[in-house]
């Protein structure tokens, strides 16, 4: 399986950024690539790139064409759109025929979550995959839940940001290890795009724009996740040895005093 992540740079306007993304992807996506992941806010700084239906249509059309032409699953990255009267950050995955097969919407200015779009999974011809957007990746539970539900690869349209960069770079591989899942993390802001397997960091970008490419055998994750009672491999343990009957506190709103402590 071949996975590629784009780390792009914002240009002065969103149209120029889209053109640059398209150009970069046309050059970089190689025959046989299975998944391509674009970053959160791929078209520009959200503070200066408000929702624009025409621009969103053009971006989705261009990426749809590319997914179909190169026959790849393409995580579009995100941009702002209006949805049910609110501004939301939207990320999608297109299948090899260019059809939308997963969508995540997150309220841009806080407020109640958009129902029905939490932590989506998609069944692809390369197995089950999850999609995460932005901050959802830095909270452990979403990628944990996707892994437990059978995702062997999590596509993250993310942003490393400018704070705690080294800790976050470590955390991307760390989550791959702890959840026994492959992670493809694309970032525009702050760089740090990463491809990670549980047992090793496969590729990690610094701040320069570009495309990371990695390839691993299709059964790599299935082998990693199979219980090995010789214990030569132990990374499966965190999925198999769980005792969910003890984890209710993780799915229960905490008392304020405890959380604040």
């Amino acid at each position, binding site marked *: 399986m071949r996975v590629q992540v784009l780390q792009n740079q914002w240009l002065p306007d969103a149209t120029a950024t889209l053109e640059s993304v398209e150009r970069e992807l046309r050059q970089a996506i190689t025959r046989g690539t299975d998944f391509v992941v674009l970053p959160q806010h791929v078209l520009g700084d959200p503070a200066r790139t408000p929702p624009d239906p025409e621009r969103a249509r053009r971006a989705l059309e261009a990426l749809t064409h590319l997914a179909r032409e190169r026959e790849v699953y393409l995580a579009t990255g995100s941009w702002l759109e209006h949805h049910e009267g609110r501004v939301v950050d939207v990320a999608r995955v297109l299948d090899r025929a260019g059809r939308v097969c997963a969508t995540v919407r997150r309220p841009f200015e806080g407020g109640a979550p958009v129902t029905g779009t939490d932590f989506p999974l998609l069944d692809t011809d390369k197995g089950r995959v999850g999609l995460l957007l932005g901050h959802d990746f830095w909270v452990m539970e979403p990628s944990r839940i996707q892994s437990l539900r059978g995702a062997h690869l999590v596509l993250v349209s993310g942003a490393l940001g400018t704070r705690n960069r080294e800790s976050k770079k*470590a955390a991307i591989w760390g989550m791959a290890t702890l959840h026994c899942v492959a992670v493809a993390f694309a970032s525009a802001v702050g760089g740090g795009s990463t491809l990670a397997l549980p047992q090793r960091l496969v590729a990690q970008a610094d701040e320069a724009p570009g495309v990371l490419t990695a390839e691993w055998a299709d059964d790599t994750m299935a082998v990693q996740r199979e219980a090995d009672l010789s214990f030569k491999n132990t990374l499966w343990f965190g999925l198999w040895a769980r005792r969910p009957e003890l984890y209710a506190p993780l799915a229960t709103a905490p008392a304020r005093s405890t959380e604040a402590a």
Partner: protein
Amino acid sequence: MKVGIVQTQWRADPTENVFYVYDQVEEICQGTTLDLVCLPEFFLGPAWYMPGQAGLKGVTDTRIPGPVTTLFRALARKHRVHILLGSMVEELPDGGYCNTAVLLDRSGDIVGRAHKVHAFANEVVVCRPGDTVDVIDCELGRLGIAVCSDFWVPETIRMLALKGAHTVLIPGGSLKQNLDAMVNAFRATAFLNCVNLVYASPVGELTGLRGGRQIRVAFAGTSLAATPAGLLARGAEDGPDSLVVDLPTLDVLTLRQRHAEDDTWQGLGLRRPEAYGGVLEAFVGQGRDLVAETRTSMAQTTPTAAR
């Protein structure tokens, strides 16, 4: 909070281990005032239920309280230091076993204990797992204990952090094959849960039969300490070691508060528990009975364990 981590090395004669570890604790307490000393998992030596170690039954396991806790309680009192006796194979009054860590305070009183919750390897047959993941309130503030493989099920540290632990103590045993991934995962766990972590591991090797095949298990030290900001200390891989670290405790609690200058708080502060029902589900790929398989494997190698 000033913490000493004692990385032990198993002696050829397991009956010597306890005195050797005692001396190491004495040594790390000399010349510096510590708040806490942490010992590794199996600091008394290999557990009798490990491959090829059946002869150690009654040697490296102990009652709690018992002679080992009595010895170290006196040491805690002498140095006015907390000691994590983590961990020991605890022989229970009914003949069962637990993998148990015990926290002594400066007076030598037992102020906390934790049983390994997520049993590893032969423990799924031999040991009674703990059924709670709780914090300990003591003079050092709110602490958590996660015994070895409990670290590898990330729900454990997550729950301890959410229950308010500023520091989680992890007596463990580093397997040689996973060192790089383990060290990185350790650092990541401290950041993602906004918690200090202290990890003490022994150095040691054993050989024996597992599933009819001769195997070698190597514990490779690499004791660690980390804050949410990164690693503070790392022990040797191939021999005994002593680490002393200053762990900020108030800083961790401050980092958990929402503020603009730092975003470490987000890992806990942006949680939406109502959306996390999925953590209460089993892994979908779990299609084998590992307890039954382990019981069969042990019957082929250590008959006494399979009763």
